[in-house]
C-alpha cells in the first residue's frame, strides 16, 4: 500500500502531463501556424539585459515562431541545467534552428547533444566561448565580437581620444580564460606600439569569493589612486560587466577616458552611473539613449572621453542571428557569403558591421567589429 501511493501518483502525473502538454502545444499552434520554429537562448535579465531584450525583440517580431529560453544565473556552477535547457529545444519537432547568445564557455556539450539527435538543426552561436576549433566543427555558424581584434582597436581608440595610459582591470578566473588573457596581451602589445603605458591590475574575484561586491569596492578605491598616479589622460578598461557602473561613474567624477566597456553598449554602465531616466516609451530607443548620454557627458565635462558601440552588440546578435538562421533554414542565405551577412547586419543594426574570419580555414566562424560612437 505504501509503495502503491507514489506509484499511482506518478502514473497520474504522466497522464496529466501528457494531457496538459498537448493542450499547451495546441494552443500555440492554433494561434499562428508558422512552418517552423527557432529557439533562442540568452542569459537571464539580471545577468545581461541586452541579449535578453534582443531575443525579446525577435520574439515580438515573429510572434509564435520564436522560443526564448534563459540560462542559469550562476552559469559557472550549473552547467548541467544549461545543457538541459538547450537540449529541451531540440525536443520540439518544429524547431529547426537554435541561436545561442551567451558568452559562456561550456555550452558545446549541449550543442553536441543537439546535433547528435537532430543533425539537420541549424545552430548559430553569437557568441559562446568554447574551444574555437571544436566550435567550428560542430556549429553551423559561430559569431563573436572580435575579441582579439578589440585588443588592438580599443587601445587605438583610446589613443585617439587622448589617452596616455591604459589600465586593464581583471581577476583570476577571467585571466584563466585563454581568450581574455590573450586579449590582455594584445592590448599590452598595442599600447607599447602606440607608446602608451599599460597597467595591469587584478581585483578580488567575483566568481569564487564573496560575489562582485569586494571587486567593486576595490575599484572604487583603486581608480582614484591610479588616476592620481597617472593623471586624467588614462583609459580604463574592465573585463567584467558589473565593473562598468563604477568605471563610468568614476569617469564622470574624475574625468578619465572610457573607450569601451567589456560588452560595448550604451545600456551597460551608463544608465546606472548617469542615472538616465529612460521613460518606458523611450526604452530600447538607442538614438534617444545615446542622446541622453551625450547630454550627461557634457554636463560632466566628459565630452569626447566616453565611447561605445551605438547599438548594443548584445541586442544586435540575437536579431541578426535569427535573421540569418531564418535565411539558412529557408535556403536564402549562404553562411559563407560575407557580403550577404554584412547586408543583413546593416539592416538590423543601422550601422556598418565588419566581418572577419576567425581563422582563414574556417568559413563558418566570423568575428565582427562595429563602428563606435564617441559621446
Amino acid at each position, binding site marked *: 500500500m505504501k509503495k502503491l501511493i507514489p506509484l499511482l501518483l506518478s502514473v497520474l502525473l504522466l497522464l496529466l502531463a501528457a494531457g496538459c502538454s498537448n493542450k499547451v502545444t495546441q494552443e500555440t499552434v492554433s494561434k499562428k501556424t508558422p512552418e517552423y520554429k527557432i529557439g533562442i537562448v540568452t542569459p537571464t*535579465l*539580471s545577468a545581461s*539585459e*541586452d541579449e*535578453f*531584450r534582443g531575443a*525579446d525583440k525577435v520574439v515580438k517580431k515573429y510572434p509564435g515562431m520564436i522560443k526564448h529560453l534563459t540560462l542559469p*544565473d*550562476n552559469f559557472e556552477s550549473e552547467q548541467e541545467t544549461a545543457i538541459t535547457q538547450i537540449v529541451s529545444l531540440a525536443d520540439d519537432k518544429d524547431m529547426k534552428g537554435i541561436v545561442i547568445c551567451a558568452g559562456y564557455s561550456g555550452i558545446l556539450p549541449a550543442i553536441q547533444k543537439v546535433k547528435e539527435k537532430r543533425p539537420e538543426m541549424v545552430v548559430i552561436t553569437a557568441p559562446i566561448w568554447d574551444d574555437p576549433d571544436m566550435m567550428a566543427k560542430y556549429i553551423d555558424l559561430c559569431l563573436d565580437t572580435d575579441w582579439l581584434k578589440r585588443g588592438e582597436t580599443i587601445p587605438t581608440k583610446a589613443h585617439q581620444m587622448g589617452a596616455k595610459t591604459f589600465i586593464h582591470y581583471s*581577476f*583570476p578566473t577571467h*585571466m584563466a580564460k585563454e581568450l581574455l588573457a590573450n586579449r590582455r596581451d594584445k592590448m599590452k602589445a598595442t599600447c607599447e606600439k602606440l607608446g602608451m603605458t599599460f597597467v*595591469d*591590475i*587584478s*581585483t*578580488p*574575484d567575483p566568481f*569564487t*569569493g*564573496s*560575489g*562582485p*561586491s*569586494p571587486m*567593486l*569596492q*576595490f575599484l*572604487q*578605491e*583603486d581608480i582614484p*589612486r591610479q588616476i592620481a598616479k597617472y593623471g586624467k589622460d588614462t583609459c580604463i578598461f574592465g573585463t567584467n560587466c*558589473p565593473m562598468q*557602473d*563604477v568605471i563610468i*561613474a568614476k569617469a564622470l567624477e574624475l574625468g578619465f577616458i572610457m573607450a569601451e566597456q567589456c560588452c560595448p553598449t*550604451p*545600456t551597460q554602465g551608463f*544608465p*546606472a*552611473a*548617469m*542615472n*538616465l*531616466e*529612460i*521613460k*518606458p*516609451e*523611450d*526604452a*530600447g530607443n538607442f538614438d534617444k*539613449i545615446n542622446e541622453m548620454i551625450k547630454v550627461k557627458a557634457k554636463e560632466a565635462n566628459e565630452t569626447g572621453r566616453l565611447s561605445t558601440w551605438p547599438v*548594443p552588440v548584445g*541586442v544586435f546578435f540575437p536579431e541578426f542571428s535569427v535573421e540569418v538562421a531564418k535565411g539558412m533554414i529557408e535556403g536564402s542565405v549562404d553562411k559563407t557569403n560575407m557580403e550577404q551577412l554584412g547586408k543583413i547586419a546593416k539592416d538590423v543594426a543601422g550601422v556598418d558591421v565588419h566581418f572577419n574570419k576567425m581563422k582563414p580555414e574556417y568559413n563558418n566562424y566570423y568575428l565582427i567589429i562595429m563602428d563606435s560612437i564617441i559621446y
Partner: protein
Amino acid sequence: MKKFIRPPQIIILVFLAVLTITAIYLHIPLNAMFGDSLVRLVMNGVLVLSLLPMLNAGIGLNFGLPVGVVAGLLGMCLAVNYHQTGWFGLAAAMLFSAMIAVVFGYLYALLLNKVKGREEIAATFVGFSFVSLMCLFWSVAPFNNPAMLWPIGGKGMRLTVGLKDYFGKVLNNTWQFNILGIKISLGLLLFFFLLCFLVYLIYKTKIGRAMIAVGENEDFARLSGINVNRVRTLSVIFSTVLGALGICVYAQSYGFLELYTAPLMMAFPAASAILIGGSTGGKTTIGQVVLGGYLYQAIYVISGPVANQLLMPEFAEIIRMLATNLIILYALLYGEGLRKNA
C-alpha cells in the same frame, strides 16, 4: 575584560603586518589606504553589527542576512521612486527599510523559532530562496521612476540603480576633511559609532539583558519568567532591521543599489568579519564587531594594491580567501571547544 587577541586574530594580524611592511617597502601610500579602510569599516560595519543581536540571543550566525538586506533595498527603492534626495532621502530610505524589516524580521523569526538548534543551516537556505523569490519580484516590480527601470525593456528594475542624484554618499560627504593625507569622513564614522553605541545601550536595558540571558542559557531564562520565543523574535527583528540599515549605509557609500542576486553574498563576508573579530558564535561584543569588521576590510584594502605591485595578483587574492575560510573553520572548531570546557 574579554581576551581580544587569540590565534585567529594573531594569524590575521601577522598577515596584515606582512602586507603593511610590503606596502611600505613598495612605497604604496598608506595614508590613503587607511582612509579607505575606515570608509569600508563603516560601509560593511553596520552589516556586521547586524549579526550581533542574533548571536547574543543564541540563534547563531545570521546567514539569512539577505532577508534584512532585501528589506533595505526595498526601502531605498521606495525612497528613490518618490524622488527623495539628500539627507532627507537617506532618512526616508532608512525609515522605509526599518519598517519593512520589522515585518520581514517577524516572519523570519517565526520560521527560525521552528528550527531551534539548527538555525544557521536553515537560515542559509531561507536567505537563498528569499533572494530568488525577490528576483521574481524585481523583474516585475511596479516602480515607476524611469531612472530605475530597464533601459531597453522599460519595465522591471535595473540590475543596478545609481544613487548619485538621490542620496548617494550623503553620509560619506558629511564633515569630510583631510588630515595627514588621510581622508576622513567624520559623519560616516560618527553615524557608525552612534549606531554601535545605541546597540550597546539597548543591551543595557531590561530587554537587552533578557536577550543575552536567552542566548547564554535558555533554560535559565525560561525559569526566570522570560518568554523565550518573544525575546528570540525581538532579536531576529533587531538583526533584520540593522541589516536593512546596514545595506542603506553600504549603498549610499557605494553609490549604487544592487538588486537581484547581489544580496546572496552579503552574509558570508559579514560572518567572516565577526568571527575574525573573535566571536565564537556565542555572545559577541561591539568591540569584536568593530575589530573584526576593521581587520577583514583592512586586509582587502591592503592586499589588492600590494599584490598588484608584486605582479602576482591572483596569488594574494587566493591566499586571502584561504585565510578567511581557514579562520571561519577555526572559529567553528575552536568556539565549540570553548563551550565544551565550560
